[in-house]
């Protein structure tokens, strides 16, 4: 990819399209029936998780299985301080708490590479759930918590806001020299360090930024769940899904993970409601087939078709 | 013994070899000379089954091998010492060498062959328990060569063995190669050390941009003005 393409004329068209999509999204609750907003909420939630995941893991190649941790921290923040403080502050605190935790985790795990990092972060999800359980059982004596309830529209706009912020951040990082540096870490970390990249700092910061968005999303979503306990809040499922969605969508482009998240969320929704008894079978089969026949994810397929199309066009003229 | 006829090899859509033909007889050293990126490694990989030619054929001991997988070709008695060493990083030096004798035919004799390889490279014996990953560049090169010899090949194809070796070891390596020929093993050698290579080789081919442009007795080629300019820097 050439750095200059982003400012070319062609990309202007893209910007306009993106703008239109967001304007449309902004008005959804006004014209769509109740459930569309509800479904959009969960789509947005997965999109945020996936895009934040890709922001760090996609480029650096460090596969983080920690989304559930940061999402869960947000959820807990919301459960504990929700209703006591204004909601925007609650969301901010959810994000910040995740951000700080991610800084700590990032600093601790610098030496881990490859699969060790992945499994470590996964262990973290379980550690959080079990230690919180122990803590609540033996120290605070809490048994689960109720969360303040919010209207769909409020939740929807909060998520949309987080999403816009996230996209902007991801875009700015990608465009800046840090985007290139993150990529170089993914390819050859040692060489990156010897080329002047402050590898540690960059990794930890990006990890924390991505955690911020997951935490904020968690804080918002908690209000839709109404009741939580440690195992509900720290569910490893929310670590796996972003990975699956990102790979399914294709990670080469920013919109790959978005498409992946949208399609898989919708597919899942469709299956658990229409084919409840066969949901896993069908979902699993589609996943396997997609991996087999879409080597570069959906985006890869789209690009291939596009290339073929434009080749043909060239051939014709 | 080895006959390559008219092969074309591609990387995706890019053609790297164009109608290459060559021949190697029993117990001779044949050198392959060419600039960077000429396609030498590609040619070796095609011969040893790591790549498939799009057209043309490769025959080894009167058997067509261009469709075979690399492991099957090894069984037939060809050994390929790859460029860039390709060691089993987390296995010890000794285990790496033993892997060279993996084919059923030679596995039984691995101990005696191992002793011989240790004689050739005493330093490997001293380092036999060390993980290949932690060896210095040159030591790794020695393991790679030693391992290639472990399979008791009839034909040994070697990709840039002297790269990264200290001058003393380079001399050593060339005499090892000559020693192999004297034992009746045919050698197909790619080397950047063109002068020394052509001195020990019987015949040589010159590869340019994926095509064979010159071939002949190596002593004669040494005198060619073209070679002297392009490859000897004279």
């Amino acid at each position, binding site marked *: 990819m050439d750095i200059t393409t982003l400012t070319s004329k062609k990309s202007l068209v893209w910007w306009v399209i993106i703008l239109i999509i967001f304007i449309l999204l902004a008005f959804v609750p006004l014209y769509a029936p109740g459930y569309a907003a509800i479904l959009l909420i969960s789509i947005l939630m997965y999109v945020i998780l996936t895009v934040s995941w890709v922001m760090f893991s996609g480029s650096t190649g460090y596969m983080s299985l920690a989304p559930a941790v940061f999402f869960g921290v947000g959820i807990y923040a919301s459960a504990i301080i929700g209703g006591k403080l204004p909601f925007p502050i609650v969301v901010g605190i959810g994000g910040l708490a995740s951000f700080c935790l991610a800084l700590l985790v990032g600093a601790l795990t610098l030496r*881990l590479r490859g699969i060790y990092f992945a499994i*470590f972060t996964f262990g*973290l999800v379980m550690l959080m759930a079990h230690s919180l359980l122990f803590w609540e059982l033996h120290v605070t004596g809490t048994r689960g918590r109720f969360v303040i309830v919010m209207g769909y529209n409020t939740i929807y706009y909060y998520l949309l806001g987080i999403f816009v912020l996230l996209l902007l951040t991801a875009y700015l990082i990608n465009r800046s020299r840090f985007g290139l540096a993150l990529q170089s870490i993914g390819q050859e970390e040692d060489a990156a360090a010897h080329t002047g990249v402050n590898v540690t700092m960059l990794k930890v910061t990006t990890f924390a930024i991505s955690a911020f968005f997951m935490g904020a999303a968690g804080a918002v979503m908690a209000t839709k769940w109404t009741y939580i306990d440690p195992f509900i809040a720290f569910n490893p499922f929310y670590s796996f899904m972003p990975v699956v969605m990102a790979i399914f969508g294709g990670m080469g482009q920013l919109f790959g993970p978005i498409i992946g998240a949208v399609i898989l969320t919708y597919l899942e929704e469709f299956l658990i409601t229409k084919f409840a008894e066969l949901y896993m079978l069908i979902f699993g089969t589609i996943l396997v087939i997609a991996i087999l026949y879409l080597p570069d994810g959906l985006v890869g397929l789209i690009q291939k078709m596009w290339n073929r199309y434009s080749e043909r066009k060239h051939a014709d003229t | 013994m080895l006959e390559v006829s008219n092969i074309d090899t591609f990387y995706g859509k890019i053609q790297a070899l164009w109608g290459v033909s060559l021949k190697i007889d029993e117990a001779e050293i044949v050198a392959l000379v060419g600039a960077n990126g000429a396609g030498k490694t590609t040619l070796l990989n095609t011969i040893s089954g790591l790549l498939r030619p799009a057209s043309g054929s490769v025959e080894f001991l009167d058997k067509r091998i261009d469709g075979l997988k690399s492991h099957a070709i090894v069984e037939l008695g060809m050994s390929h010492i*790859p460029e860039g060493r390709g*060691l089993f990083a*987390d296995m010890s030096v000794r285990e790496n060498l033993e892997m060279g004798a993996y084919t059923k035919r030679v596995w039984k004799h691995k101990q005696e062959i191992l002793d011989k390889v240790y004689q050739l490279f005493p330093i490997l014996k001293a380092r036999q328990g060390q993980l290949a*990953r932690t060896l210095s560049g040159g030591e790794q090169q020695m393991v790679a060569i030693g391992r290639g010899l472990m399979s008791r090949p009839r034909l040994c194809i070697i990709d840039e063995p002297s790269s990264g070796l200290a001058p003393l070891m380079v001399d050593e390596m060339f005499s090892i190669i000559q020693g192999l020929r004297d034992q009746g093993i045919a050698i197909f050698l790619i080397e950047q050390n063109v002068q020394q290579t052509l001195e020990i080789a019987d015949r040589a081919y010159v590869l340019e941009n994926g095509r064979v442009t010159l071939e002949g007795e190596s002593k004669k080629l040494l005198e060619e003005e073209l070679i002297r300019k392009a490859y000897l820097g004279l």
Partner: protein
Amino acid sequence: MIVTFLDIVIAGLLMGGIYALIAVGLSLQYGVARVLNISHGEFIMIGAFGTWMLYKMVGINPLITLAMCGPVLFLIGFFLHKTLFRSLLASSASADIFEAKSMLASFGLLFIIQNIAILTWGADIKSYSYLNYGVNLGGALFAANRLVTLLFAVVISTAFYLFLAFTRLGKGIRAAAQDPRTAGLMGVNINQVLALCFGFGAVMAGLAGGLLSMCYPITTTMGMEYTIIAIIVVVLGGLGSIVGSFIGGFLLGIIGSIVTYIEPGLAMVSYYVIFIVLLLAKPTGILGK
């Protein structure tokens, strides 16, 4: 009765044996075939349900079932690799890409296998009681079924380790783990070896499942729990190190047992704490290089 230290340690070994067996299988699949098989636990579940079914319906001794489960699971694993993972391997540009894709594919497999199992056996809990009596070991009592489990786990894992360390094929497998391309140049038939490894991994899982079913209730959704343990043990022991997985399994078992004795509420916490602390101290696992 005084609960002695020995008592706790042996209890830990009993648990650790199973953990080790589960982990060895995964270690093989990941260490060699580079498939971080998220559906490992589903193979355990198949082994467990196979054993349960044959015992409940036909009355076949679970220990005999082990011998029958092995080959069946081997074939399943072997052909899964021959078909699914092999074509993934062929279409992946790099090892990293293959790792990501194969993990995802195994995630899909998990869904498929589990759904089929639920349709076949239902989602409710199954259990039976076999060799459930106490055996006196140096003054401490242990359930016979768990001793048998330990014995089998140790024998199976050891046999497997010896196979890998000392046979030609075993060495070929290890070489393939590190550099498949070069292993091919040495005469190793890569596709065959990878499929074998995947098959062996499935066998280990199946056997572990069979043994587990003798001691614990089973459900068709139990797989994930064991997959997680297996992954932890494999990483704890050092990737691709069979001995490491073995040690890791026992370590986890023993520490778990000690903690359970002191404060059962922290049993699971301790697993993850050990894991995380150890990984931070030695980022490549106990026997990682």
